[in-house]
């Protein structure tokens, strides 16, 4: 399955948000994920060509 993460195409091994993050080597603890402007949980199933937007959890000093 292919999804876009922040506009970048990622080949996903698996079906969920967490699988997509793992495929992109992103720790799921460090981001929240939106799809179509809505927050989605990390076990949410994805569809081919879904576009995900990441929100960084870590900010500040």
């Amino acid at each position, binding site marked *: 399955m292919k999804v876009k993460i922040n506009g970048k195409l990622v080949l996903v091994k698996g079906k969920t948000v967490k699988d997509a993050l793992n495929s992109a080597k992103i720790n799921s603890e460090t981001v929240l994920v939106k799809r179509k402007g809505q927050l*989605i*949980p*990390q076990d949410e199933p994805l569809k081919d060509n879904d576009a995900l937007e990441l929100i960084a959890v870590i900010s500040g*000093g």
Partner: protein
Amino acid sequence: MNSQKCNCGKPAVYLRLNEGRHYCGLCLTRQIERNFTKTIAKENMVKKGDSIAVGVSGGKDSMVLLHLMNKLRKKVPIKIFAITIDEGIKGYRNKSLAVVADLTKEMEIEHHVFSFKDEIGASLDELKESKFCTKCGVFRRYMLNKKSRELGATKLAVGHNLDDEAQSVLMNVMRGDVGRIKRKNGSNKFVPRIKPLKNIPEKELVAYAIINNIPYFEGECPYSFDNMRRDVQTIINEMEAKHPGTKNQIVKFGQKVRFVKEPQNIKDCSKCGEPSSQEVCKACQLREEVKKS
């Protein structure tokens, strides 16, 4: 439409892994607000008539804290005001200060800003040396306490979350510093510090801010690249992703250690009179270094 559902039947926006439970925006909001009030009640953090200085940097933790304290003051007769320390980091602190100014104005809350430049004679940008994070942390804590006391605060509320607490415990373990985990206050110049968000994970605070449209500054401090806390944060987040509940367990460990042996006392610094765990406080030691440089 999200396919995972909250217990209430609405689409889920968040999965709390250590509980294996999904939350919709409204249930997560209620849960976080309950956590906030429960933490305050359990430790008697707030009393009627308190004048509470809220340390606000403009990041998500302190902006959520200000939002929740503002809600609290509508239920409990307390006064709150915001206090920001401007370290003088161009392109970072000036931007976050603007976010704080907007929200405090909207909430009709007093906002006091104090700068490193005025207090120690130099901004962080002007300190052309290493140990930025140590100096910044020491001077920030020093000034937050001193200025809160001068403004008549009975409490100082800070936005430390569960992740911060877990990081502090692990950093003290890595430094072999049991005393820091166990110290208690013995100075009357120390404004009691309260941490109403200390049981809420950082990730849930970001979710709360997004769900409730709380503005915050997303920037990252340009000096935070070389800091031990950042390394510890990475380690803990890797463990939490593999073993949900790790952060809670680290914090529990810290709480247990606190009651094992005699704690280290905080007294008044022999130079400036501010609270310190040493004869001469770290701020005075660093101030000398700054003067020499």
